[in-house]
């Protein structure tokens, strides 16, 4: 909670600077940016700052003739961590990717149903994908920093989204690197290649890079499975600390991890050849009083 207040304190002056900076600028993307910052500022006045939740209604993900996931319904409340667990190939990652429409990049992949981010159905035609992906940040299984310097990994996305004020960019770089606990580790070598960082540091940089764009939702696709236990623990703590400000959805293979950090859990399973969500609820009830027999077996480590 203390960390949360600190963040707010830091955010407010920064936002007012942002808006003035952007009033000078012209261009549609910049205007959108400015508008967003404005609304964010309003939001942070009426505490607590809350990102919109996600609602999935009968979402199907198909690859050609194969159904990866069918009829997925799920409420992902804001300000908490929801974990998607289940065996490999049950469509969890496909479901996650459909929330930032990354599924559009896969030829032949079709997503149907409705996914509401706040009031907007993001699967609707005419959704501005670049804007959507700003609102919905995504962190991948293996860290994928861009092949450029540490600070450029954050500056480049900001500039691409229309931010031009170098002093604001510098401040954002410092803030987000601080948010992921990387500032003290890298502040003296911001100009060095991001690829020279350790795996855990790279993953935290990728998270920082997402945070810089001020998203509302953060999607994590097995963010720790390519990391050593120590880095994994750091990233886990970091994700836990982020939930107060963002809606967090986490795909994980690691049940213990889901139990440690998630507030809600949804269990995916393969039934009749395609993936579906068989049970969802808050973490305690899923682990202690599962209703579905498969959930029972899976959560006790008997199956899957």
């Amino acid at each position, binding site marked *: 909670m203390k960390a949360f207040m600190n963040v707010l304190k830091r955010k407010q002056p920064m936002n007012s600077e942002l808006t003035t900076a952007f009033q000078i600028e012209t261009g549609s993307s910049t205007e959108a940016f400015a508008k967003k910052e404005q609304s964010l500022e309003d939001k942070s006045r009426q505490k607590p700052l809350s990102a919109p939740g996600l609602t999935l209604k009968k979402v199907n993900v198909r690859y050609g003739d194969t159904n990866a996931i069918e009829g997925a319904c799920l409420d992902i409340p804001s300000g908490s961590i929801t974990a998607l667990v289940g065996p490999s190939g049950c469509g969890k990652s496909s479901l996650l990717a459909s929330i930032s429409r990354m599924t559009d*990049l896969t*030829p032949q992949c079709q997503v149907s149903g409705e996914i509401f981010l706040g009031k907007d159905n993001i699967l609707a035609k005419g959704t501005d*994908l670049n804007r959507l992906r700003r609102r919905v*940040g*995504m962190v991948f299984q293996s860290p*994928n920093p861009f092949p450029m310097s540490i600070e450029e990994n954050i500056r480049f*996305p900001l*500039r*691409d989204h229309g931010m031009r004020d170098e002093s604001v960019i510098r401040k954002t770089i410092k803030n987000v690197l601080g948010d992921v606990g990387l500032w003290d580790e890298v502040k003296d070598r911001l100009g060095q290649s991001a690829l020279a960082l350790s795996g855990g540091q790279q993953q935290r940089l990728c998270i920082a890079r997402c945070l810089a764009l001020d998203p509302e939702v953060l999607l994590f696709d097995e963010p720790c499975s390519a990391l050593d236990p120590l880095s994994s623990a750091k990233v886990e703590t970091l994700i836990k600390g982020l939930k107060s400000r963002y809606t967090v959805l986490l795909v994980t293979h690691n049940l213990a991890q889901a139990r440690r950090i998630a507030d809600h859990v949804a269990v995916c399973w393969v039934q009749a050849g395609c993936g579906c969500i068989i049970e969802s609820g808050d973490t305690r009830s899923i682990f202690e009083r599962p209703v579905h027999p498969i959930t029972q077996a899976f959560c006790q480590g008997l199956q899957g």
Partner: protein
Amino acid sequence: MRTNIWLTRGLRTAAWLSASILLFILLFLIQESSPLIGEIGLGPFFQADGWYPQEGAFQLTPMLLGSLFVAGGAVLLATPLGIIAALFGQFYAPPALARLYRGLMELLAGVPSVVFGFWGLVVLVPWINRLAPPGASLLAGALVLALMILPLVALTADAALAAVPQQYLRGAAAMGLSRWGTIQRITLPVAMPGILSGVVLQTGRALGETMAVLMVCGNVVQIPSSWFEPVRTLTANIALEMSYAVDQHRTALFISGLLLLLLTITLVAVASHFRRMQHE
């Protein structure tokens, strides 16, 4: 097991044979060139009054410059076009169009150079002649060569762009970054060594091209003062004079061949350096 040993031996012999051919060519050229170099040294080839082989004046500079200008002009024209074509095929064209486009590029790469030369001679040269006579010129050569190397520059650039790790592109897409921003800051820098290696190899090809250049360049031995003046390249010189050259004249032609081979070897070394850069 036995067949395996024989197969390995057979393959190894074949590999060594093809590798040693280059060595033999190099040795042959050196052997053929050495008498004249031994007699007058290397200096006269760059200091003589001109190219008067009957009188023993073997000034190679105008033809060396001719080769370099023609090839350089072609590379300057073909590189940006090739990169743009590859970017279009990789990132902007609908998949079906991109496939068609790639197919056309491969076809274009297969057109015999003499056909390009023929086209240059009957279409391009008269056209340039109307702009600035005589038409057969450095510009004509550079344009024809540019057309010849463009498809392979585009295809190698296309392959280099396709080899950019997907994880970078997915990362950029997931952050909602613009397509052009991603290309500019991620795709092109990562693919650049591969693209340059293709360009350098094609420079070598342009330097070595004979027939098309011979047909459109005018073949006057001079250092050109503008793009519209005729030039003679080293390759054209060899092709034009080898049939009647004797003694020192013949040896001088071998020396120009040796010069070309050394240039090309240097270019290949540069290209492989770029390729190593991409793998790192």
